[in-house]
């Protein structure tokens, strides 16, 4: 799989990361290198191998349905840039 400059620009946009001219070229190259590794992996014969969703062969533990958290709004909001009436304030977003 090859990666073009346009792919990187689109990914940067989706990830809300600003890339300048110099870093676009550099990032394109390093991601291309990673994809080359992926290509090598793709070449391995995986016939009959069950796909895994996680690298460890472990199973998720579930917890009982109990309320264990208490209200720490004051502490959390103390480190937020802007709050009002108990709400976190963010730049206006309307879809």
């Amino acid at each position, binding site marked *: 799989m090859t990666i073009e400059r346009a792919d990187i620009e*689109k990914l940067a946009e*989706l990830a*809300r990361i600003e890339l300048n001219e110099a870093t676009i070229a550099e990032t394109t190259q390093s991601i291309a290198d990673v994809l080359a590794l992926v290509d090598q992996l793709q070449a391995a014969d995986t016939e009959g191998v069950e796909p895994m*969703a*996680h690298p*460890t062969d*472990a*199973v*998720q*533990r*579930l*917890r*009982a*349905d*109990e*309320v*264990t*958290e208490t*209200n*720490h*709004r004051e502490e*959390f*909001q103390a480190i937020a840039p*802007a709050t*009002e*009436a*108990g*709400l*976190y*304030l*963010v*730049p*206006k*977003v*309307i*879809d």
Partner: protein
Amino acid sequence: MEWETVIGLEVHAQLATKSKIFSGSSTAFGAEPNTQASGLDLAMPGTLPVPNEQAYRYAIMFGLAIDAEIAKTSVFERKNYFYPDLPKAYQTTQLERPIVGAGHVDIELANGTKKSIRIHHAHLEEDAGKSLHEDFHGMSGIDLNRAGTPLVEIVSEPDIRNAEEAVAFAKKLHSIVTSLGICDGEMSQGSMRFDVNISVRRPGEAFGTRTETKNLNSFRFMEDCIALEVERQIDLIEDGGKVIQETRLYNGETKQARSMRSKEEANDYRYFPCPDLLPVVLDDDYIESIRQNLPELPDARHDRFMEQYGLSSYDANILSGDANMAQYFETATKVSGDTKLTANWIMGELSARLNAEDQSIKHSPVNAEQLAGMITRLVDGTISSKMAKQVFEAMWNGEGAADEIIEAKGLKQVSDSGAIEAMVDEVIANSDKQIDNYRNADESKRPKMLGYFVGQIMKASKGQANPQQVNEILLKKLNELI
């Protein structure tokens, strides 16, 4: 030329767990903003999710209720997008390996037609927070209490062909989840929300391009929104235009819809398995024990209501559909002892009143015991059906139990035959002319002439004489005079 409508639904039902799907924060509705948002819900670095077993149990109960395959291994994935009410910048959801596989939900339409709507799958995921766009100095306010509330998202196949089927399907789902007790079904609080995918085509042709209208939270809005969107698409195509794939928002109050974003510029969600969560593996015994403990489902309850209470299929449908309505009916009929009257009052006066005030039966100002108390007094003749309406009104306004109201308002019906006889005698004695007319009238005309006498007697009793007894005694006395 004819058009065919094709509809598929995606339904979000909030699961009635005490705590969130991945954290121990409370899910209680109506708390002060952000008082139920923990470090994990706020996406603080270093926090890790642990799934709630009850959310799994509830999703499995739903799957079993719709005859679906339950996945013994299910996997959470990250759906990546940016929105301030989603602090992690991804929603933890399921895609490739959801907990509930294909199933079906059977609906019955007003004309008795039955139809099975296929369910593609249902998956577990977390709800987002809420954005408040009132003016906070040009900023938006974010409340993350809802973030992390467990949801089951139910995805139907495009098997629905019109608004009536869509509403019947949505109501049936509502009935199933409330009967299972896995969702409180409070649509006004957003406990159940419907996304409707709509397209039109010429019968027999391939599916047309669809639009998705999101977040409908009332059956009536769904019906109105489908009619509007179908008309819009047909007009567009007939005028030579093309439907574009987009997300739309419908405003139920103004009955208008607008485009939200088109899919062309839409997000590429870049799903991938969540590295913070391992696959959830369940065994047959676990699933089987849930199956053994499933509560009564709507279809079974419908049949039981017909058999046990002698209700028609139509009445049984209304009374058994909503789990809260069914419970209300069963409690009330047990106390009052009169199934028919209880059914009529619930489907008539009570439902009309609840609808008019947009109330759910669960929060009815008149509870099942109170209604039954009033019906008991109707059955034993203490009050007439006219008085019952007054009593109901007073109960609705919180004036107390039926007996208290009957006492306070002096609404007791006079059923003492001696007292009624005396009133009848008095009216007859003062109505010489009317009595002559009655005597001389043809027998077939006489029944119509009774109205005058009944009116006079009811007036004399200040409306409190038992109308049935008045009729009986009056007829007897008049017959003696002829």
